[in-house]
């Protein structure tokens, strides 16, 4: 994927205000180092192109923009999220550029949350998402669930959704389950308190929790 060069100030403004985070390379034709960074960005664009957009701008042709961002040397890279400069890398530091692209590319809503939720639900073989923690449940349903799980003496881990709004809302969508607590075995949703109670009543609980 080649990196488009900005042709006008309007084009520049449209690009940096886009929904996607924009990686802007301030460059100059005569500087050999810029070519090096440009090649690095082209490589990054191959696997981050769906999350970040990469453009270059000839610093000397747009003095106002360059002044605004205090571009004193090329190459310089500035990262924009919805029009705001959120980070920058001065000079040829491909490792740093790569790390920041990965970080910003990863923090775009959607996939990264899903990956996080997948990791969290698989954190332990038996995983409970609840209000409060096992020692201090902060809702009646969560408390009843902990009492039932403790009675099985199976090992389990808990995650307090009251401390993390992103997980609290995200997990509802991820698992298509609107309420808490939620019980996972090896990353698979078993259900909420009603289901755990019902499994227990049917003497199927331990089998279900062992997966």
């Amino acid at each position, binding site marked *: 994927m080649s990196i488009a060069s900005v042709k006008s100030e309007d084009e520049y403004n449209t690009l940096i205000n886009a929904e996607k985070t924009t990686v802007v390379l301030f460059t100059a034709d005569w500087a050999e180092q810029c070519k090096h960074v440009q090649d690095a960005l082209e490589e990054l664009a191959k696997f981050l192109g769906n999350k970040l957009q990469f453009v270059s701008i000839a610093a000397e042709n747009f003095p106002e923009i360059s002044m605004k961002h205090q571009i004193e040397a090329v190459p310089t890279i500035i990262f924009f999220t919805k029009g705001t400069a959120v980070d920058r890398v001065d000079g040829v530091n491909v490792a740093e550029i790569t790390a920041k692209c990965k970080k910003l590319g990863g923090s775009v809503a959607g996939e990264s949350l899903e990956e996080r939720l997948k990791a969290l639900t698989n954190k332990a073989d038996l995983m409970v998402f609840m209000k409060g923690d096992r020692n201090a449940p902060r*809702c009646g*349903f969560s408390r009843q669930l902990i009492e039932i799980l403790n009675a099985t003496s199976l090992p389990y881990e808990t995650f307090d959704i009251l401390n993390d709004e992103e997980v609290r809302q995200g997990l509802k969508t991820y698992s298509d389950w*609107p*309420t808490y607590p939620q019980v996972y075995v090896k990353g698979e*949703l078993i259900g909420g308190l009603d*289901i755990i109670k019902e499994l227990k009543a049917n003497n199927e609980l331990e089998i279900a929790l062992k997966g």
Partner: protein
Amino acid sequence: MSKYTSKYLEEKLADKLGAQYVNAIDESDGCGGKFSVTIVSEAFRGKTLLQKHRLVNSALAEELKEIHAFSQKSYTPEEWEKEELESAGFGVQATTAGGEGLRIKTLED
């Protein structure tokens, strides 16, 4: 709190799931934030526990955004009959001293 009533939930579930029996109990003293619901429907036939609950959750997707405490019991007609028999068996024993035998509650009770 939420604007929902037991009657509203019962009608919605009866409609959405073709439930032959629905009983919603408002456990929130009328503020509408906590419900316990029993549902009997053919729609649950052949479904796992998780799938049954998912059906109910999706029928009440909008409502569950506001109802903060919700518990459900979902039965197929056969499961419900069995459940009723068991609970009737316990409940009726004391009143059958006269020897008239167990009187099984009907669904309309």
